[in-house]
């Protein structure tokens, strides 16, 4: 009887020590990309979509982000992300090693990705920080890639006194304008880096109004990758038919700050 009790006792030990598979954060299939400005400052990347030709739909639409976590394709060992940005379009091809492992009946399988690499792309500068993609949900400390862009030295920040329905906005030189929605309280507009004046034309429904601003420009090479850029300062209002324009700040920064406050 005493001997039998031994086996009962150790049966309990055995049951208590069984390992159950944990289904949490099984796959490390997220590439975490941080957007930065050369010099190290965090960027707010304004984009229309991020997608991959092999995926069913876009991963992100119409937003501004300082970082994104993008899923990589478990069917292949290369994923090409197409990023339609506010000011340019980019392709970011990444390669990786992919292995699959069965976990349990409840959890199914998990994908283990490693050896992440960034192939040739059209960003200003790309730094591979970690070659191991992040698990999902993505931990706050995860970072795989830092994408750097040249500073934008000609974006003026304009804020409206109240939210306005802005049907159109143009400038008097060839430039890309990012206008995320029709109703806005702020918008960033480019100043002509090759001139000392720029004219903005705002369409508020049926009314069209203009704002001509003047400034000083000074050529300077901030980063070799970016070449010579015009640094703009001493902004002031030249001509306008808007009700009121206040100058909040007369110099340009990146990320844009509020330079003008407009009452339409």
């Amino acid at each position, binding site marked *: 009887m*005493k*001997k039998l009790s*031994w*086996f009962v006792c*150790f*049966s309990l*030990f*055995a049951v208590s*020590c*069984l*390992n159950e*598979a944990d289904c949490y954060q099984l796959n490390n299939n997220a590439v975490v990309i941080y957007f930065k400005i050369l010099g190290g400052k965090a960027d707010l990347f304004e984009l229309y979509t991020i997608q991959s030709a*092999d*995926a*069913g*739909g876009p*991963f992100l639409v119409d937003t501004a982000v300082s970082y994104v976590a993008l*899923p990589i*394709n*478990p*069917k292949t060992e290369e994923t090409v992300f197409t990023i339609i940005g506010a000011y340019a379009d980019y392709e970011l091809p990444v390669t990786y090693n*992919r*292995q*699959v*492992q*069965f*976990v*349990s*009946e409840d959890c*199914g*399988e998990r994908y*283990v990705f490693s050896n992440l690499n960034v192939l040739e792309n059209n960003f200003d500068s790309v730094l591979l920080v970690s070659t191991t993609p992040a698990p999902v949900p993505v931990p706050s400390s995860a970072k795989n890639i830092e994408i750097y862009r040249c500073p934008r030295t000609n974006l003026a920040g304009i804020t409206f006194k109240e939210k306005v329905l802005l049907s159109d906005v143009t400038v008097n030189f060839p430039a890309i304008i990012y206008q995320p929605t029709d109703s806005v309280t702020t918008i960033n507009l480019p100043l002509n880096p090759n001139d000392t004046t720029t004219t903005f034309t705002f369409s508020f429904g049926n009314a069209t109004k203009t704002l001509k601003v003047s400034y000083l420009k000074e050529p300077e090479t901030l980063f070799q990758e970016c070449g010579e850029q015009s640094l703009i300062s001493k902004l002031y209002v030249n001509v306008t038919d808007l009700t009121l324009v206040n100058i909040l700040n007369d110099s340009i920064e990146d990320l844009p700050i509020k330079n003008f406050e407009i009452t339409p």
Partner: protein
Amino acid sequence: MRSLHNILLLILISFTASAQKEADTAEKKADTVKQKKDFIPTGIRLGTDAFALVKSTYDESFKGWELNADVDFYRYYLAVDYGYWGRTYISEDTDYSNDGTYVRIGADVNFLKKDPDKNMFFVGMRYAASRFSEEMVINQIDEYWGPISTTINNDNVNARWFEVTTGVRVKIWKMIWLGYTARLKFALSTDNTTDMLPSDVPGYGRAETDSYWGFNYQIFVRLPVRKPPSTLLKK
């Protein structure tokens, strides 16, 4: 942290077993004061893991068996295990199966060296190796990337690991012995595989765990090859 917990648990089991066995044999020890060191084997013990056999009958996902043998050299035992296990998991979108054999070889030290029945409370070490194959069939729809349908195999993968063991062997009746072995398995290494990481290693368990507990409940038949040393001195 988990490994530390496992080691502490193993030590706890060992000391609990030691204390109990000492009590069991106290009466016999009173009659026995000395045994000459005799390194010539007195018998071979052949056994099987009852737990594996029982599990194979009620668990449809598991098929396995294990044979055990040990030979005594005074208080030291050469122990060899050979086993087979195969698992089959079928779910809605992922099927997995594996099978393979494993072998363990090592030594145990019996701390009940004065027990006339050669009952054992032992601690030992094992080197273990396994050779197995596995297959996974995936049929699922990924949230972003659409249908995934693939079959992946690992064929003839070699794995190896070490074990710290402890347990008891108790003579129940004539040649019949019962015992259990608790084993802490660790330092698993497997061949490099390309597309599929090993999931379940026969004889070890889940491959992604750094250490793993194992328990065997064993039934033995001890075949004597000669009489035990007749040098037991009565008080």
